[in-house]
């Protein structure tokens, strides 16, 4: 259970949102909507702990996320604007490092399977800078398949993906929600769920 109470965030001199209250229960997806500059990314970054909100609290399983620290971060997977992969390393190497950092499954078998499922079979041993924009994004998304974290926070995960990859990502999200996971995401696309609850939050007036 992720609970947010009285959250207020400012960026520079502007108040993006204030007195924000919501909660996400297991098996639910929260779709954060709003115009450009309404503070979607800042909200997602404060949920991760990357941005310190000006006031308010974020609680995970009843405890303050700030106090939980590493324990909270272990339960969390964040997918931001950057892919977070190194161009000089191969897909497998990238995922192996990500798995160690996130304390996730990281045996080579699992990683190769994940890369194959995301449609990168045959590209595993290529430095990722040789891949196309969409393929790089796929490498990054393969992290979702290795993840054991119950809480996924995804910032615009669908951009730069082709139709096949969009479908696959939809499936991954649906599977995660069906398995009692929590998802918070921003996207301009509609998300279809086969199971679990779907809620949406509007930022900005």
């Amino acid at each position, binding site marked *: 259970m992720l609970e947010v109470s009285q959250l207020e965030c400012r960026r520079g001199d502007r108040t993006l949102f204030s007195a924000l209250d919501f909660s996400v229960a297991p098996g639910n997806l929260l779709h954060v909507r709003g115009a450009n500059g309404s503070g979607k990314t800042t909200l997602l*970054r404060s949920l*991760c*702990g*990357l*941005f*310190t909100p000006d006031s308010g609290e974020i609680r995970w399983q009843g405890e303050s996320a700030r106090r939980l620290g*590493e324990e909270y*971060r*272990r339960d*969390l997977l*964040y997918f*931001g*604007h*950057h*892919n*977070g*992969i*190194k*161009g*000089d*390393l191969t897909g497998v*190497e990238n995922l*192996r*490092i*990500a798995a*160690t*950092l*996130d*304390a996730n499954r990281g045996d080579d078998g699992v990683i190769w399977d994940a890369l194959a499922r995301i449609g990168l079979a045959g590209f595993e041993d290529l*430095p990722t800078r040789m891949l196309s924009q969409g393929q790089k994004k796929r490498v990054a998304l393969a992290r979702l398949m290795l993840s054991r974290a119950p809480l996924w926070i995804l910032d615009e995960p669908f951009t730069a993906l082709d139709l096949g990859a969009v479908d696959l990502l939809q499936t991954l999200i649906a599977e995660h929600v069906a398995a009692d996971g929590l998802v918070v995401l921003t996207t301009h696309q509609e998300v279809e769920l086969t199971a679990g609850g779907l809620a949406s939050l509007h930022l900005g007036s």
Partner: protein
Amino acid sequence: MFRVFWCILHRDLTLALRRRTDVLTTLFFFIIVVSLFPLGVGTEKETLQTLGPGVVWVAALLASMLALERLFAADYEDGTLEQMLLAAQPLSLVVLAKITAHWLLTGLPLVLIAPLAGMQYHLTGESILVMMGALLVGTPVLSLIGAIGAALTLGVRGGGILLSLLILPLYVPVLVYGSGAVEISRIDFSATGPYFALLASFLLVALTFAPLASSAALKISLE
């Protein structure tokens, strides 16, 4: 814990090996600076022997400064640094691994090339030995303190110049005792003990606090 440390260390070393020029640039910068001084101040043996220790240390300072800019910058740009902040591991451990890798790639080569610089300045065998020892203990301190500055100036315009403005004053103690040890070894080899004790204590203190301060700085810079 140690798995993460090794993982990041291995990662940074691998990355550096795939971009070898970066490492070599620092090394050649050091060699060039050291070689330019005799052309400027004259090639008299006496003068060079007096200037040698200081010049080598200042060159080492500048070389390690130059490399610091890249310590976090690349990871910041592609978003991997963000992922490290969100890792289920203490950030200071990750930072310490990155600093270690950075030292292995920029500090250690300076220690190994130091005899060459020593010969250019007509230093005796004993002095060269002391210089290598002092660099071995002192350059990790430079990397550790420098990491704080590198984290603070991350993504800031004119970051490189700013970094030197912030960090060079903090390098003074290492410079004083590092070159002091070499200086004194020309007179009395046995008097170098206290210098090494001081440098080693700097290293221990920096090892304890610098990773914490750098991770605090990284959190501020990535907001």
